[in-house]
């Protein structure tokens, strides 16, 4: 009955349907027939082609990875780097363990610079007046133009970032030598000019000293973020950490005092962090100099005005420094000559020159000169310059008066840019002569006196680009390749400084193999001149405290903005704010309350008429008198990221229409006393009506249980266990706390007879620099998901760094904790998987099998560490060329499967196979995950817990070792070691 009724109705509804078949019946029929056809037709093999070499290079076997030693160009530090090349494509970069500066570490930026190689938006050819041209056209027109400039005797200026390359420096000099009025000006977007200027005043040499943190027992930093972005962070992290190990019977531990108004990465690692306003910091520096001078028997009245409390702090600091004469180090990140002269005075009076501060073999990483830059800007404004060459610099973006500079550039008859894309500056250039990516070209560097290194190409150039020095050689008359030019220069000026190799070609080959060479450096001595300090010291009081000032800081991810096209870095959370895809105005809670703004409310910052509008981020631990803004955002062309991330109905764009990623805060930089001032500029701040939700990867800040869940005064959760050095010295187990294990239903039936992989992370070593996070991303093909997905807590990083704040005892502390799959012995995820897609193996690994996973997500719900990531979508690459960066040893996961840290099992497998092939046992260190390899602080140790000789077993036995949430009885394979701070009094611990 019902059936007939239904049919009648449907016939009514589908009067026009032919042949009497209704829609439902048709679909039924079609379903059956298609199923049959599909099954019958499934066995058509997909035709795949295998295309071998025509002529195979003898040293290459397809499928094997080859490593080439080269030099990183991610920032000015020029760390040693190894590039892994597989079948002609670089797919991973790692630190070069033999390199004297970086010693195997490589930062997040260095790791991510690989992605920049596969950026399809790099210029594919040179441009003349914005139009595509050939190199022959460029050379012909350029020669004609240059001849005219020469004939007229016009002023030629060559503006670059710091040139650490001996060959490039020589080539620029040779090129400029052909003109009557020519000058090479260097400047850095993130300026260290004041340090060099101060040394010119106190040591009569304009040098940047090489800071030797490995020799410093007492470190005092005035807002120098030396573990994050300042000068050479990897070198400094290595040195700093080597002084803070707890090895040996009598461990020594350096003391680090950090004085700052913001919360920097370095400050978050300090033993003692003193939170002051920018003006107070200046006064403290003055007062400290007076005290140290008095101890050294000199009279130096700096007339510092300090509160009683700060004066007492400085008193004890002075005593500590004086007691560690020759073994202490004072550094300052403020770019004012006055401050840097005081720092030089301190280091000189403390006898640190020649010990922890090396001016005889100085650093060449920053050579920028702000005074010369200012002079050049004046020349440009007055129309004196006829030809301007700009390489490795983007002044229109990173100088405060960029827009007026852009207009001025348009009036210069000849502007040549060597940028790899039409950036803010290249827009106004007559010629744009794109340079190859550092991975595609020969380069050379001398980052510190006596350390020379080469960078070799690791891939055929992807675009029609030409190296700066090649272009200069063509325009100077003789065309030479970059390799010939570099070899020529080295034969002339570097070879004579080396000893060991009999002839140049052997020296060159050895250098190429190692990636660097240590040669003698010209030893120029210079004495500290105390009288110059007295005469140059101004006693004018610094700006009144209480006024709101702005502090502009290089971002750990974007640095000065040169990496703004790198999606990996955009999605790497800032180590302190945990913000991605944006920069923001950091305000203290009290300041935010006074202004009536909350997280995400947009505020307008105004410095001398220049304005920036940014969303607010409330930063605990920050001084009330400052607003902190990251530089490096708001770069032209970042609107390319508008639609990054998966396409779906509720998607919100990463970048709104017509906007860029973040805002350019460089407009707030001021020129004061011949240097660029990044901090201490008075700012007017006003609330606007708009809001802009920030995407943060971590929204919980405290180790205390939230009020909603329990008593806020209850004991702290022992996820981070910490102690003081004094307490550690008496009791090595101090601070580590083992909670009683809850009853377990698991039987102890897992016997690991072969390998048993495990990891120990030393929280005392980890600085939170996030190099491991990017290293993991590159190694394991982790996709970029975009701002909106991060806001929905759907970021895909297998390894994250949790950051916790603690404000007990009035001392603000920060702890960083890398967190990834703990590979539990009794894994809760394994028991709930209905399809056995996550199972244990007999080496203790918690395996995730993508091809079995059906995406129930039960495992993620049952994971106490929240380290599992679900592929909600198919994450396509925004840039098709990014496919070339994929690691062919790791599956690209599809939509609907779960994934998580695998302990880089592909590396373990390869190490095991290699050992088997050689007929030997696996050695400790043969299998090393990407995170452990890249760590500049050697915080991560991976190994076989069944190998009694291994480093991991040694660390597991250490009294400091504990496991996170061990009371659950899940028996994680990842252990942590207590965080140790060199503090005076023992902090009340959570279980006392």
């Amino acid at each position, binding site marked *: 009955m019902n059936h007939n009724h239904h049919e009648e109705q449907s016939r009514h509804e589908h009067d026009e349907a032919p042949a009497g078949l209704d829609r439902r019946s048709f679909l039924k029929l079609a379903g059956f027939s298609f199923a049959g056809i599909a099954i019958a037709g499934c066995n058509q093999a997909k035709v795949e082609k295998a295309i071998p070499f025509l002529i195979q290079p003898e040293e290459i076997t*397809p499928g*094997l990875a080859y490593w080439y030693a080269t030099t990183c160009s991610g920032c000015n530090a020029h760390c040693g780097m190894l590039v892994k090349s597989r079948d002609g494509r670089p797919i991973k970069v790692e630190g070069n363990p033999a390199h004297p500066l970086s010693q195997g570490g490589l930062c997040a930026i260095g790791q991510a610079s690989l992605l920049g190689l596969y950026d399809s938006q790099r210029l594919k050819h040179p441009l003349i007046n914005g139009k595509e041209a050939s190199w022959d056209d460029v050379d012909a027109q350029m020669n004609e133009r240059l001849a005219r400039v020469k004939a007229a005797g016009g002023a030629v200026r060559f503006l670059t970032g710091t040139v650490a390359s001996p060959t490039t420096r020589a080539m620029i000099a040779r090129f400029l030598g052909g003109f009557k009025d020519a000058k090479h000006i260097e400047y850095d977007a993130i300026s260290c000019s004041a340090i060099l200027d101060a040394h010119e005043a106190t040591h009569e040499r304009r040098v940047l000293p090489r800071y030797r943190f490995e020799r410093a027992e007492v470190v005092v930093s005035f807002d120098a973020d030396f573990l994050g972005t300042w000068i050479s962070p990897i070198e400094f992290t290595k040195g700093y950490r080597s002084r803070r190990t707890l090895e040996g019977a009598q461990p020594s531990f350096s003391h680090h005092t950090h004085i700052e108004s913001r919360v920097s990465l370095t400050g978050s690692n300090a033993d003692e962090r003193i939170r002051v306003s920018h003006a107070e910091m200046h006064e403290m520096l003055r007062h400290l100099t007076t005290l140290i001078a008095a101890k050294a028997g000199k009279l130096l009245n700096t007339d510092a005005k300090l509160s009683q409390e700060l004066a007492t702090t400085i008193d004890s600091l002075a005593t500590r420094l004086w007691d560690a004469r020759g073994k202490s180090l004072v550094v300052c990140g403020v770019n004012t000559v006055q401050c840097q002269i005081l720092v030089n005075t301190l280091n000189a009076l403390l006898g640190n020159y020649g010990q922890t501060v090396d001016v005889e073999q100085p650093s060449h990483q920053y050579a920028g000169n702000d005074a010369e830059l200012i002079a050049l800007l004046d020349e440009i404004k007055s129309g004196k310059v006829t030809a301007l060459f700009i390489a490795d610099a983007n002044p229109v973006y990173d100088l405060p008066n960029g827009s007026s500079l852009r207009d001025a550039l348009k009036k210069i008859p000849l502007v040549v840019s060597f940028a790899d894309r039409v950036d803010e500056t290249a827009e106004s250039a007559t010629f744009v002569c794109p340079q190859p990516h550092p991975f595609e070209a020969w380069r050379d560097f001398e980052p510190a006196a006596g350390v020379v290194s080469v960078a070799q190409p690791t891939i055929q150039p992807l675009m029609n680009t030409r190296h700066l020095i090649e272009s200069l050689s063509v325009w100077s008359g003789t065309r030479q390749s970059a390799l010939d030019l570099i070899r020529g220069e080295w034969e002339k000026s570097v070879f004579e400084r080396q000893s060991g190799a009999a002839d140049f070609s052997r020296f060159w080959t050895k250098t190429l193999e190692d990636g660097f060479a240590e040669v003698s450096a010209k030893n120029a001595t210079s004495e500290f001149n105390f009288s110059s300090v007295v005469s140059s010291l101004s006693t004018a009081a610094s700006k009144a405290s209480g006024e709101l000032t702005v502090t502009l800081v290089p971002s750990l991810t974007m640095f000065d903005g040169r990496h703004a096209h790198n999606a990996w870095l955009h999605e790497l959370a800032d180590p302190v704010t945990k913000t991605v895809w944006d920069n923001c105005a950091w305000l203290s809670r009290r300041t935010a309350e006074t202004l009536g703004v909350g997280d995400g409310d947009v505020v307008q910052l105004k410095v001398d008429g220049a304005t920036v509008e940014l969303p607010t981020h409330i930063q605990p631990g920050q001084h009330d008198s400052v607003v902190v803004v990251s530089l490096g955002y708001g770069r032209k062309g970042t609107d390319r990221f508008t639609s990054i991330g998966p396409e779906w109905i509720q998607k919100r764009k990463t970048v709104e229409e017509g906007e860029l990623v973040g805002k350019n805060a460089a407009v707030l930089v001021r020129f004061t006393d011949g240097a660029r001032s990044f901090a201490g500029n008075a700012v007017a701040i006003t609330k606007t009506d708009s809001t802009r939700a920030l995407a943060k990867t971590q929204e919980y800040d405290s180790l205390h249980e939230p009020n909603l869940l329990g008593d806020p005064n209850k004991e702290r959760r022992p996820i981070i266990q910490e102690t003081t050095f004094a307490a550690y010295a008496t009791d090595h187990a101090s601070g580590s706390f083992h909670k009683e294990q809850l009853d377990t239903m698991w039987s102890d039936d897992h016997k690991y007879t072969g390998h048993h992989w495990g990891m120990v992370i030393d929280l005392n070593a980890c600085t939170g620099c996030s190099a491991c996070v990017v290293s993991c991303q590159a190694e394991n093909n982790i996709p970029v998901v975009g701002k909106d997905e991060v806001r929905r807590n759907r970021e895909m990083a297998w390894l994250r760094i949790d950051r916790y704040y603690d404000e007990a005892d009035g001392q603000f502390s920060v702890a960083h904790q890398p967190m990834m799959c703990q590979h539990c012995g009794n894994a809760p995820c394994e028991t709930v998987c209905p399809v056995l897609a996550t199972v244990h193996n007999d080496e203790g690994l918690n395996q995730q099998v993508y091809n079995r996973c059906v995406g129930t997500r039960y495992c993620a719900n049952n994971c106490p560490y929240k380290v599992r990531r679900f592929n909600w979508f198919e994450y396509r690459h925004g840039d098709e060329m990014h496919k070339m960066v994929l690691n062919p040893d790791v599956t690209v996961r599809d939509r609907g499967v779960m994934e998580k840290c695998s302990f880089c099992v592909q590396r373990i*497998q390869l190490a095991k196979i290699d050992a088997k092939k050689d007929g030997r046992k696996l050695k400790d260190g043969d299998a090393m995950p990407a995170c452990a390899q890249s760590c500049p602080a050697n915080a991560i140790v991976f190994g076989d817990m069944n190998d009694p000789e291994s480093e991991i077993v040694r660390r597991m036995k250490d009294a400091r070792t504990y496991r996170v949430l061990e009371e659950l009885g899940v028996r994680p394979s990842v252990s942590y070691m207590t965080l140790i701070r060199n503090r005076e009094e023992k902090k009340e611990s959570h279980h006392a």
Partner: protein
Amino acid sequence: MNSRLLTVVLSVAVLLTASVFLTSFTTNIKLPDNHQGYEPVQPIAYSHRLHAGELGLECLHCHYGAERSRTAGIPATNVCMNCHKFVTAPWVNVKAESDRAEKEKRAPRQIVSAELRKVYDAFGLNSELKPDPAKSPTPIAWTKVNNLPSFVYFNHSAHVSAGVECQTCHGAVETMERVRQVPDLSMGWCVNCHRDANKNGVNGKSVKASLDCVTCHH
């Protein structure tokens, strides 16, 4: 009436589907993605029977990657040229030409077989086997025979060094005129071989063949 028609059509469809299933199960059980017996036509009719069988060349002579690398590798064209610089045609054809030349009292002509001509073309060589600037060298695009899904990682060197014969997975290639996929290359087939190796060893040598998922899936 409509309902009757539907029943008829539906039962025909069910029968058809069932017959497809049945025939495939009785003749040759093939699940989706099983390409056992796949024998694609290659751009050059290269004979493994001749080279590896009759002439007795070792597999690793050309596929030397199998010893060192994840992939065995298809030899680069310059490997072919090591011999085929001199051997340009089957011996009988060359012999016949030289006999004929002797009879006709002239110098023998260069004999180049049609298949080898393709190799020389790839190298950009002219009829005298000299480089021809007009021709651009292009590598030969062979068709892959043994394909594994993209989430499976097989390492040749691990198996070769453990003493596994190439024929265990590739079949008697030395008897094949055109290469064919012999086993079904399914996971069960791999795992059974690993189990067997753990029990009986490989070539009399005891081995430990892993049964972990992550051995192949990562």
